[in-house]
Protein backbone atom coordinates (compact mmCIF):
# COMPACT_ATOMS: atom_id res chain seq x y z
CA UNK A 1 0.00 0.00 0.00
CA UNK A 2 3.05 2.28 0.27
CA UNK A 3 3.11 5.22 2.65
CA UNK A 4 -0.21 6.81 3.56
CA UNK A 5 0.62 10.46 3.00
CA UNK A 6 1.57 12.23 -0.23
CA UNK A 7 3.85 15.17 -1.13
CA UNK A 8 0.87 17.53 -1.15
CA UNK A 9 0.00 19.22 2.14
CA UNK A 10 -3.62 19.89 1.12
CA UNK A 11 -4.17 16.31 0.03
CA UNK A 12 -2.61 15.02 3.26
CA UNK A 13 -5.01 17.11 5.35
CA UNK A 14 -7.92 15.80 3.25
CA UNK A 15 -6.71 12.19 3.73
CA UNK A 16 -6.42 12.67 7.50
CA UNK A 17 -9.91 14.21 7.68
CA UNK A 18 -11.31 11.33 5.63
CA UNK A 19 -9.60 8.85 7.96
CA UNK A 20 -11.15 10.54 11.02
CA UNK A 21 -14.62 10.22 9.40
CA UNK A 22 -13.94 6.58 8.48
CA UNK A 23 -12.77 5.65 11.98
CA UNK A 24 -15.85 7.32 13.52
CA UNK A 25 -18.13 5.43 11.10
CA UNK A 26 -16.34 2.15 11.86
CA UNK A 27 -16.71 2.56 15.63
CA UNK A 28 -20.42 3.44 15.35
CA UNK A 29 -21.01 0.55 12.95
CA UNK A 30 -19.21 -1.93 15.21
CA UNK A 31 -21.45 -0.96 18.15
CA UNK A 32 -24.59 -1.44 16.01
CA UNK A 33 -23.39 -4.72 14.48
CA UNK A 34 -22.23 -6.27 17.76
CA UNK A 35 -25.11 -5.26 20.04
CA UNK A 36 -27.97 -5.13 17.50
CA UNK A 37 -30.26 -3.55 20.06
CA UNK A 38 -31.85 -0.24 21.08
CA UNK A 39 -29.40 2.56 21.78
CA UNK A 40 -30.31 5.06 24.53
CA UNK A 41 -31.53 7.59 21.92
CA UNK A 42 -33.74 4.91 20.34
CA UNK A 43 -35.38 4.30 23.73
CA UNK A 44 -35.85 8.06 24.17
CA UNK A 45 -37.50 8.32 20.74
CA UNK A 46 -39.83 5.30 20.99
CA UNK A 47 -40.47 5.63 24.72
CA UNK A 48 -39.99 1.87 24.98
CA UNK A 49 -37.18 -0.45 25.98
CA UNK A 50 -36.24 -3.60 24.10
CA UNK A 51 -38.09 -5.74 26.66
CA UNK A 52 -41.23 -3.59 26.28
CA UNK A 53 -41.26 -4.21 22.51
CA UNK A 54 -40.42 -7.92 22.98
CA UNK A 55 -43.27 -8.30 25.47
CA UNK A 56 -45.64 -6.71 22.94
CA UNK A 57 -44.36 -8.72 19.95
CA UNK A 58 -41.20 -10.86 19.88
CA UNK A 59 -41.13 -10.97 16.07
CA UNK A 60 -41.23 -7.19 15.92
CA UNK A 61 -38.18 -6.86 18.17
CA UNK A 62 -36.35 -9.50 16.11
CA UNK A 63 -37.04 -7.46 12.95
CA UNK A 64 -35.85 -4.24 14.62
CA UNK A 65 -32.73 -6.03 15.90
CA UNK A 66 -31.96 -7.31 12.39
CA UNK A 67 -32.25 -3.81 10.92
CA UNK A 68 -30.03 -2.28 13.62
CA UNK A 69 -27.45 -5.03 13.07
CA UNK A 70 -27.66 -4.60 9.28
CA UNK A 71 -26.96 -0.85 9.67
CA UNK A 72 -23.77 -1.83 11.51
CA UNK A 73 -22.80 -4.51 8.98
CA UNK A 74 -23.30 -2.18 5.99
CA UNK A 75 -21.45 0.57 7.84
CA UNK A 76 -18.44 -1.76 8.25
CA UNK A 77 -18.62 -2.78 4.57
CA UNK A 78 -18.79 0.87 3.54
CA UNK A 79 -15.80 1.60 5.77
CA UNK A 80 -13.77 -1.04 3.92
CA UNK A 81 -14.86 0.16 0.46
CA UNK A 82 -14.18 3.81 1.37
CA UNK A 83 -10.78 2.94 2.83
CA UNK A 84 -9.77 1.13 -0.37
CA UNK A 85 -10.97 4.09 -2.47
CA UNK A 86 -9.04 6.47 -0.19
CA UNK A 87 -5.81 4.48 -0.47
CA UNK A 88 -5.95 3.45 -4.12
CA UNK A 89 -7.88 6.29 -5.72
CA UNK A 90 -8.04 9.47 -3.66
CA UNK A 91 -4.42 9.25 -2.48
CA UNK A 92 -3.29 8.87 -6.11
CA UNK A 93 -5.27 11.95 -7.17
CA UNK A 94 -7.72 9.95 -9.31
CA UNK A 95 -10.65 12.18 -10.32
CA UNK A 96 -13.18 9.33 -9.97
CA UNK A 97 -12.26 8.95 -6.29
CA UNK A 98 -12.98 12.64 -5.59
CA UNK A 99 -16.34 12.33 -7.40
CA UNK A 100 -17.11 9.13 -5.51
CA UNK A 101 -16.59 10.87 -2.15
CA UNK A 102 -18.76 13.76 -3.33
CA UNK A 103 -21.64 11.46 -4.41
CA UNK A 104 -21.46 8.98 -1.51
CA UNK A 105 -21.08 11.82 1.01
CA UNK A 106 -24.15 13.58 -0.37
CA UNK A 107 -26.19 10.36 -0.03
CA UNK A 108 -24.94 9.33 3.42
CA UNK A 109 -24.54 12.68 5.19
CA UNK A 110 -27.59 14.18 3.49
CA UNK A 111 -29.84 11.28 4.47
CA UNK A 112 -28.44 10.96 8.00
CA UNK A 113 -28.83 14.65 8.77
CA UNK A 114 -32.41 14.76 7.46
CA UNK A 115 -33.78 11.38 8.56
CA UNK A 116 -32.06 10.80 11.88
CA UNK A 117 -32.90 14.25 13.26
CA UNK A 118 -36.32 12.91 14.29
CA UNK A 119 -34.66 10.23 16.42
CA UNK A 120 -31.52 11.99 17.62
CA UNK A 121 -32.72 15.59 17.96
CA UNK A 122 -29.91 17.96 18.89
CA UNK A 123 -28.06 15.25 20.80
CA UNK A 124 -24.29 14.74 20.94
CA UNK A 125 -24.63 11.98 18.33
CA UNK A 126 -26.40 14.32 15.90
CA UNK A 127 -23.88 17.12 16.54
CA UNK A 128 -21.11 14.60 15.82
CA UNK A 129 -22.80 13.87 12.47
CA UNK A 130 -22.77 17.60 11.74
CA UNK A 131 -19.04 17.81 12.62
CA UNK A 132 -18.33 14.80 10.34
CA UNK A 133 -20.28 16.46 7.52
CA UNK A 134 -18.25 19.66 7.94
CA UNK A 135 -14.99 17.65 7.92
CA UNK A 136 -16.14 15.91 4.72
CA UNK A 137 -16.92 19.26 3.03
CA UNK A 138 -13.52 20.67 4.10
CA UNK A 139 -11.71 17.52 2.84
CA UNK A 140 -13.35 17.79 -0.59
CA UNK A 141 -12.91 21.56 -0.83
CA UNK A 142 -9.22 21.70 0.10
CA UNK A 143 -8.33 18.75 -2.12
CA UNK A 144 -10.29 20.01 -5.17
CA UNK A 145 -7.33 21.74 -6.83
CA UNK A 146 -5.18 18.61 -6.50
CA UNK A 147 -7.62 16.69 -8.68
CA UNK A 148 -8.74 19.34 -11.18
Amino acid sequence: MGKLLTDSKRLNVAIILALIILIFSLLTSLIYAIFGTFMPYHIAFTGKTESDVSAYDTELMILIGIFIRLMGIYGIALFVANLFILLFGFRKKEKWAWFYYLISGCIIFGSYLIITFQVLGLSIMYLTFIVMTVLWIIALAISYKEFF
Partner: protein
Amino acid sequence: MGKILTDSKRLNIAIILLLIANLIVIITGILYVIMGFLPYHERIIGKSPSRVDSSVMNFIYIIIRVNGFMFITLGVSGIYLLFAGFRKKEKWAWINGLIVVALATFPTTILVFDPTFAMPFPLTLSLLIMVIIALIISYKEFFK
Protein backbone atom coordinates in the same frame (compact mmCIF):
# COMPACT_ATOMS: atom_id res chain seq x y z
CA MET B 1 -15.03 5.08 -17.23
CA GLY B 2 -14.43 3.96 -20.83
CA LYS B 3 -15.99 0.82 -22.29
CA ILE B 4 -17.45 -1.69 -19.87
CA LEU B 5 -16.02 -5.00 -21.07
CA THR B 6 -12.43 -6.22 -21.39
CA ASP B 7 -10.60 -8.71 -23.67
CA SER B 8 -10.96 -11.47 -21.06
CA LYS B 9 -14.12 -13.61 -21.21
CA ARG B 10 -13.86 -14.65 -17.53
CA LEU B 11 -13.39 -11.09 -16.37
CA ASN B 12 -16.32 -9.93 -18.52
CA ILE B 13 -18.66 -12.51 -16.93
CA ALA B 14 -17.45 -11.41 -13.49
CA ILE B 15 -18.00 -7.73 -14.37
CA ILE B 16 -21.55 -8.43 -15.61
CA LEU B 17 -22.39 -10.47 -12.48
CA LEU B 18 -21.01 -7.78 -10.17
CA LEU B 19 -22.76 -5.04 -12.12
CA ILE B 20 -26.11 -6.88 -11.80
CA ALA B 21 -25.48 -7.49 -8.08
CA ASN B 22 -24.69 -3.81 -7.45
CA LEU B 23 -27.72 -2.66 -9.46
CA ILE B 24 -29.96 -5.01 -7.41
CA VAL B 25 -28.50 -3.49 -4.22
CA ILE B 26 -29.19 0.05 -5.50
CA ILE B 27 -32.77 -0.81 -6.60
CA THR B 28 -33.47 -2.49 -3.24
CA GLY B 29 -32.11 0.62 -1.51
CA ILE B 30 -34.37 2.89 -3.57
CA LEU B 31 -37.38 0.67 -2.71
CA TYR B 32 -36.50 0.84 1.00
CA VAL B 33 -36.14 4.63 0.88
CA ILE B 34 -39.40 5.18 -1.02
CA MET B 35 -41.62 2.58 0.66
CA GLY B 36 -40.07 2.33 4.13
CA PHE B 37 -41.90 -0.94 4.87
CA LEU B 38 -42.21 -3.77 2.35
CA PRO B 39 -44.83 -6.54 2.22
CA TYR B 40 -42.34 -9.15 3.46
CA HIS B 41 -41.64 -7.08 6.57
CA GLU B 42 -45.37 -7.19 7.30
CA ARG B 43 -45.35 -10.96 6.82
CA ILE B 44 -42.41 -11.33 9.25
CA ILE B 45 -44.10 -9.43 12.08
CA GLY B 46 -47.49 -10.93 11.21
CA LYS B 47 -49.44 -7.68 11.44
CA SER B 48 -50.04 -4.49 9.47
CA PRO B 49 -48.12 -1.30 10.39
CA SER B 50 -51.36 0.31 11.62
CA ARG B 51 -51.55 -2.27 14.44
CA VAL B 52 -48.05 -1.45 15.73
CA ASP B 53 -47.39 1.34 18.27
CA SER B 54 -46.93 4.55 16.24
CA SER B 55 -43.59 5.61 17.81
CA VAL B 56 -42.12 2.12 17.29
CA MET B 57 -43.47 2.06 13.72
CA ASN B 58 -41.96 5.51 13.03
CA PHE B 59 -38.65 4.22 14.32
CA ILE B 60 -38.89 1.18 12.01
CA TYR B 61 -39.61 3.43 9.01
CA ILE B 62 -36.52 5.50 9.87
CA ILE B 63 -34.13 2.56 10.28
CA ILE B 64 -35.44 0.95 7.06
CA ARG B 65 -34.86 4.23 5.18
CA VAL B 66 -31.36 4.61 6.66
CA ASN B 67 -30.65 1.01 5.56
CA GLY B 68 -31.97 1.97 2.11
CA PHE B 69 -29.56 4.89 1.82
CA MET B 70 -26.73 2.61 2.94
CA PHE B 71 -27.71 0.07 0.24
CA ILE B 72 -27.60 2.83 -2.38
CA THR B 73 -24.17 4.03 -1.22
CA LEU B 74 -22.82 0.46 -1.11
CA GLY B 75 -24.10 -0.14 -4.66
CA VAL B 76 -22.54 3.12 -5.88
CA SER B 77 -19.20 2.29 -4.24
CA GLY B 78 -19.39 -1.22 -5.74
CA ILE B 79 -19.89 0.20 -9.25
CA TYR B 80 -17.04 2.71 -8.79
CA LEU B 81 -14.72 -0.06 -7.58
CA LEU B 82 -15.86 -2.29 -10.44
CA PHE B 83 -14.93 0.21 -13.15
CA ALA B 84 -12.00 1.99 -11.50
CA GLY B 85 -10.24 -1.09 -10.16
CA PHE B 86 -11.78 -4.48 -10.93
CA ARG B 87 -12.07 -3.88 -14.70
CA LYS B 88 -8.40 -2.87 -14.77
CA LYS B 89 -7.40 -6.10 -12.99
CA GLU B 90 -6.23 -4.25 -9.88
CA LYS B 91 -5.60 -6.77 -7.09
CA TRP B 92 -6.92 -4.39 -4.41
CA ALA B 93 -10.33 -4.26 -6.13
CA TRP B 94 -10.63 -8.07 -6.04
CA ILE B 95 -9.54 -8.16 -2.38
CA ASN B 96 -12.07 -5.42 -1.56
CA GLY B 97 -14.79 -7.54 -3.21
CA LEU B 98 -13.80 -10.52 -1.06
CA ILE B 99 -13.81 -8.45 2.15
CA VAL B 100 -17.22 -6.90 1.38
CA VAL B 101 -18.65 -10.38 0.72
CA ALA B 102 -17.23 -11.65 4.00
CA LEU B 103 -18.35 -8.60 6.00
CA ALA B 104 -21.69 -7.71 4.41
CA THR B 105 -23.22 -10.17 1.94
CA PHE B 106 -22.51 -13.34 3.91
CA PRO B 107 -23.67 -12.05 7.34
CA THR B 108 -26.78 -10.54 5.73
CA THR B 109 -27.65 -13.90 4.18
CA ILE B 110 -27.23 -15.56 7.58
CA LEU B 111 -29.30 -12.85 9.34
CA VAL B 112 -32.24 -13.13 6.94
CA PHE B 113 -32.04 -16.94 6.61
CA ASP B 114 -35.48 -18.45 6.11
CA PRO B 115 -35.97 -22.22 5.66
CA THR B 116 -39.17 -21.55 3.66
CA PHE B 117 -37.17 -19.45 1.16
CA ALA B 118 -39.44 -16.48 1.72
CA MET B 119 -38.20 -12.99 0.81
CA PRO B 120 -35.67 -11.46 1.31
CA PHE B 121 -33.61 -14.66 1.78
CA PRO B 122 -33.70 -15.74 -1.93
CA LEU B 123 -32.53 -12.28 -2.98
CA THR B 124 -29.59 -12.10 -0.57
CA LEU B 125 -28.64 -15.72 -1.34
CA SER B 126 -28.67 -14.95 -5.09
CA LEU B 127 -26.48 -11.90 -4.49
CA LEU B 128 -24.05 -13.97 -2.42
CA ILE B 129 -23.84 -16.69 -5.09
CA MET B 130 -23.40 -14.13 -7.91
CA VAL B 131 -20.56 -12.32 -6.13
CA ILE B 132 -18.79 -15.56 -5.10
CA ILE B 133 -18.96 -16.88 -8.70
CA ALA B 134 -17.65 -13.54 -9.99
CA LEU B 135 -14.71 -13.63 -7.56
CA ILE B 136 -13.88 -17.29 -8.27
CA ILE B 137 -13.96 -17.08 -12.08
CA SER B 138 -11.95 -13.84 -12.12
CA TYR B 139 -9.35 -14.97 -9.56
CA LYS B 140 -6.76 -16.03 -12.15
CA GLU B 141 -7.04 -12.71 -13.99
CA PHE B 142 -5.81 -10.94 -10.86
CA PHE B 143 -3.38 -13.42 -9.35
CA LYS B 144 -1.54 -15.16 -12.20
